[in-house]
């Protein structure tokens, strides 16, 4: 666990118009061991992306990192200077984003963007950087890389663009890759191929991956561990196999039940009752209690601590593992 990426007690707030701070992420923590894929799931606005951006210290200007430390191996990233942090970005930890159209600079040829990413960190001649870029494009499965090198982003398909993004992210062989909804903007068949590519990175390049998504199917297929977030808090974390087989938190269980399955007959799909409250109106106690079928009086008063159950399966619930009656 020495070289893992570790987030501890992360708290991120935004100032609200009335001046007080609204907590978007509250006491979030997770660990990505090397060559492991961790899926971070949760609904929109629960703080997944902010957690990912916080690792690279690229939070939007309005956001405030109130508390929390981020360790890369033994290094505390929150203590680095901005210049040292720039050396971490791309070299140690790279990130790819949801929208591959807008993540590529529209005025540069895609090959030159890969070269640019390489030369941001390494003193290489243009020719050798170009050679490396062609190799990278080939490795991420772009056919005829020599031709594609000359293409502008708008001439490529979504899947190809995401492959180029991955090539730029790989340019300095980072140890960790944060993939923020890398396939949400792609259609399903392309999605599968991109995920296959990301999975192969973990195996071939021994890269640790933090996969941010709201798609439970992707998590089941591509990750070793999974962390579930609700309203900026970690509610459950564990090996993907365990969480899917035996979810402990009522929210995680409800999420899994709401995924349609082939062959389950003409049953009405289950939904979680109620709506996600906005972070400004965070309920007291357990954030999930207003929607929880297992709610008991204590849930309203106290925040359940994240407790360890068998084999590193952690859950923050007073009635973890109980079934609704």
């Amino acid at each position, binding site marked *: 666990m020495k070289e893992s990426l570790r987030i501890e007690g992360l708290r991120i707030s935004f100032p609200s118009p009335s001046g007080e701070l609204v907590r978007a992420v509250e006491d979030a923590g997770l660990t990505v061991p090397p060559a492991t894929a961790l899926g971070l799931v949760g609904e929109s606005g629960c703080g997944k992306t902010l957690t990912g951006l916080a690792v*690279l210290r*690229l939070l*939007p*200007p309005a956001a405030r990192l109130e508390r929390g430390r981020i360790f890369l191996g033994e290094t505390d990233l929150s203590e680095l200077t901005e*210049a040292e942090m*720039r*050396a*971490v*970005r*791309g*070299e140690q930890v*790279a*990130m*790819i*984003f949801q*929208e591959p159209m*807008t*993540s*590529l*600079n*529209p*005025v*540069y040829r895609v090959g030159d963007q890969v070269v*640019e*990413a390489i030369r*941001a*960190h390494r003193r290489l001649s243009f020719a050798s950087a170009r050679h490396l870029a062609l*190799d990278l494009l*080939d*490795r*991420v*499965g772009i*056919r*005829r890389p020599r*031709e*594609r090198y000359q*293409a502008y982003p708008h*001439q490529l398909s979504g899947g190809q663009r995401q492959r180029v*993004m991955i090539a*730029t*992210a790989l*340019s*300095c062989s980072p140890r960790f890759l944060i993939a923020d909804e890398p396939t949400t903007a792609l259609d399903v068949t392309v999605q599968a*191929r991109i995920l*296959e*590519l990301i999975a*192969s990175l973990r195996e*071939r390049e021994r890269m640790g991956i933090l996969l941010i998504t709201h798609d439970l199917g992707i998590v089941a297929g591509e990750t070793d561990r999974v962390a579930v977030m609700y309203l900026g808090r970690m509610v459950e974390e564990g090996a993907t196999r365990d969480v899917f087989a035996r979810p402990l938190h009522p929210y995680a269980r409800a999420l899994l039940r709401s995924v349609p399955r082939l062959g389950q007959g003409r049953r009405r799909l289950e939904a979680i009752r109620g709506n996600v409250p906005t972070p400004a109106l965070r309920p007291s106690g357990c954030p999930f209690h207003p929607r929880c079928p297992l709610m008991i009086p204590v849930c309203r008063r106290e925040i359940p601590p994240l407790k360890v159950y068998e084999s590193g399966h952690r859950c923050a619930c007073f009635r973890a593992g109980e079934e609704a009656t």
Partner: protein
Amino acid sequence: MKRIAVPGRASPPPPAAEPGVWRRLGRSPAARISLAVIVFYLLLAAWGCSGWELPDWRTVNYARAYQGPSPAHPFGTDIHGRDVLAKTVIGARTALTVAFLASVLAVAIGLILGLLAGYLGGAVDGIITWVYSTLESVPYYLLILAFAFVLQDRSINLWGMEFRLEGINAVYLALGLTGWVGLCRLIRGEVIKRREGEYVLAARSLGASPLRVMFRHLAPNVLHVVIVTFTLGFVSYIHAEVVLSFLGLGAKEVPSWGVMIDESKLELARGVWWQLLAASLAIFGISLALHVFGDALRDALDPRTRGTKR
């Protein structure tokens, strides 16, 4: 490293490149003609700068003062008997040199300050916005006049080299130091629009420094603004040079269209109209050509009008 196998058929050939900016410009006859006119003026100016076989505008010959247009002097002669056509040609050199140097200076200042203000925001933005708002609140020609007055005959010491700002030097310095305001504001706006863009975030997530983001990632994306401003700004600098020279603040001892118009104030009373005509025609030609070309360029560069038939 093995290539990651991708199932599926061979990828289709890349789509045909859409017509480039030059192709789209070339579709409009007005753009082609105006470009030809601009090139003609540039050649005249280049001829003036090269000093090779220049038409003779210096020889004073009072015997042929104020001669009307004739085959030997198509635009007649002035009070000193000098050929007006020759003066007009040299005037092109004066006007275009001033406009070019002023544009370069203004674009450099405007682009750099606009990028800094837009991308860094905060106090930097506040200061730059304050400076250009202040400059902008002064009427344009008044401001140039003030700058030209202050700079006139002043000598500046740059890295041990003495520069004496006389005549035309003060003009282009004054124009460049005041002309960046519009471009700076446009660039600032464009940068603010783009700085939260995902490709900026992507570049930063790969470790790009703020300067790298500004000059390598954002600057090329706002270049169309620079090109159009350069073209349209060029016209206003030519006009400004004429106005300043007319007022006696600009060109001295070199022919300038402004000086020619100034001289024709007295000549018109005597019925000598050819010097005014020559200078006005010269200004009219280049202004019209640059305006038409600037408009066509804006249409060709604006991605929103791409793909529309015109």
